[in-house]
């Protein structure tokens, strides 16, 4: 892959002129890129070829009948899908996934946004400690807190229930909402709230008429991110879920590792395609509201760049 591009001969670009053609004549130098540029692009291309290969082979597999020693399967069929649908109770699994995702979004927004507001706006005793406490779950391997938490869940009889799945998924989601909303609230000018109060608005009114409309884009972005993470969360869900409370990823994992060498590969592939399509749909909707960078970073993508 792109390992060789880390060699210390990489040419770093000069800060690019803001507007096209402001410093160089049109066409000049545009076609003659440095070798390092080619290396970077080749690496990126290789990565995408890999990625594409992985995706398409799953899709092809899910439609193929026998596919062993050839480039493509011999015949195409859709029966793996109906097979998987019945065999794994996909309707229920998808339903569970949606219920879990929506509950986690609503709860983590309700819990996280007020806390983010205070962290963004106020100083108070123990603020640093409290901030650290909120961020700790993000810095820890999920298994580290997941196993004790799952043990508690089983002890109090919540094991393998929907409630447990929702609760464990809150642990990384709430900090995540706090992490994305705090900088978002910070960039809303606080004197705007003061101005509203000076106009005679009570705290409730300030929140309802001024803050909420301004917060909506941030809340939407945070919700989408939580959605993507919750649907994709395997480790924590797997610890506490069981029949009737498995989400899609967990169901696929179980199918892949079922005793006796797992289910037929094509069955798994067809489930995987269903999952991928679901995720794609979520993603397409999501990207209307958030920039891709936000999916991983709390730093806002600068508009200038």
């Amino acid at each position, binding site marked *: 892959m*792109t*390992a060789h*591009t880390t060699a210390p001969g990489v*040419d*770093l*670009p*000069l*800060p690019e002129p803001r507007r096209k053609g402001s410093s160089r004549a049109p066409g000049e130098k545009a076609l003659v890129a440095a070798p390092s*540029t080619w290396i*970077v692009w080749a*690496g*990126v291309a290789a990565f*995408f070829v*890999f*990625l594409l*290969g*992985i995706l398409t*082979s*799953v899709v092809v*597999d899910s439609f193929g009948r026998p596919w062993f020693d050839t480039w493509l399967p011999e015949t195409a069929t859709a029966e793996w899908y109906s097979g998987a649908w019945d065999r794994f109770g996909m309707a229920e699994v998808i339903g569970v996934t949606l219920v879990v995702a929506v509950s986690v979004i609503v709860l983590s927004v*309700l*819990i996280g946004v*007020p*806390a983010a507001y*205070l962290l963004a706006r*106020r100083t*108070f*005793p123990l603020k640093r400690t409290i901030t650290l406490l909120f961020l*700790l779950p993000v*810095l*820890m*391997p999920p*298994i*580290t*807190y997941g*196993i*004790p*938490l799952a*043990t508690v869940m089983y002890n109090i009889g919540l094991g393998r229930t929907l409630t447990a799945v929702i*609760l464990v998924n*809150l642990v990384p989601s*709430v900090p995540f909402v706090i992490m994305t909303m705090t900088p978002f609230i910070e960039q809303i000018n606080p004197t705007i709230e003061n101005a509203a109060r000076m106009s005679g608005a009570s705290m409730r009114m300030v929140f309802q008429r001024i803050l909420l409309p301004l917060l909506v884009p941030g809340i939407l972005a945070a919700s989408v991110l939580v959605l*993507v993470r919750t649907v*994709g969360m395997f480790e924590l869900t797997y610890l506490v879920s069981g029949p009737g409370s498995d989400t899609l*990823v967990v169901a696929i*994992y179980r199918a*892949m590792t079922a005793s006796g060498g797992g289910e037929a590969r094509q069955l798994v*592939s067809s489930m995987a395609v269903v999952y*991928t399509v679901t*995720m794609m749909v*979520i*993603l397409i909707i999501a990207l209307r509201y958030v*920039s*891709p*960078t936000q*999916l*991983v970073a709390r730093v*806002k993508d*600068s508009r200038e*760049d």
Partner: protein
Amino acid sequence: MSAPTAGRGTPAARRGGRAARGKSTASMRHRLAERGVDVSLLMLLPALVFAVVLFIYPFSYGIGLTFQPTPAMQEQWGAGIWSNYVAFFRDGFIFDSVWITMRLALPVALFNVLVSIPVAFKLRHRFRGKKALTTLLVLPITLGTVLTAQGLLIFAGRQGWLNRFLLEIGVIDQPLQLVNNYLGVMFSLIISGFPFAFLLISSYLSGIDPSIEAAAKTMGADWKQRFRRITLPLLAPGLATTFILTFVLAFSVFPSARLVGDASGETRVMALMAYRAFGELLDYPMASTIAVMMGVVELVVIAVVLLWRSSMYKGSTGGKG
């Protein structure tokens, strides 16, 4: 003020008393206000309850549990309440998983960060299709490890397209063993970790005011000097954070270690051991012990990274201070 008191005191004394009391509550409020304490702090309550109930309590409970080893453990390793920890360090089968995990997570995290730097630099200016490119990069993050694993098994398996292609063009004459071993897990971690690292570093890079570098340029610094003396120190905090986050991601890997790795050999990572104790052996105390030790190992790595970071640059990443 209660009636009997009012009866005893003169009106003047009563007024005085009330005034004094009013003053003391007011100054109490003043004192609290000065420290930033008032009713609106109640907004923090739900999050605090959440943190205590779902994080602090279970976690402390888990730590407590590590000191209540099962009778079987005690018999095998002795050492009373410490026998889980003794087992962790002395049982080669368990302890080796620490090295196995590190051997996987450290190179992957390092690779992801180091490769992301030049790529992020190359792609930091505006060009057509940038949004499409970043969107495509988000894909593997959302696919998650289970899906990547399934794809890798088919694509890079002995009869997959990759091996077939390499055989066809004559680079190899035997299919390569790319999955169900160390390499397979590594691939899967890079596929989900690299875009993550790249997007993070890009966003940190975009937070650095380009005019800072331009200023260095006007002062005669060539690109090597600019990178080493200006950009790298400014980027260091971001690099440290990225490294930590990708490391955490790779460190807690467990589906791919099982699905595309060699779960009983080369990729018998800590998370797998913890889950085995939890789900298969039903030894909750030992499972918690491994989980806690995972946290400890990770903290050590994070501490080392933060130490490196503080030696680079103390301050904000330029931009908005």
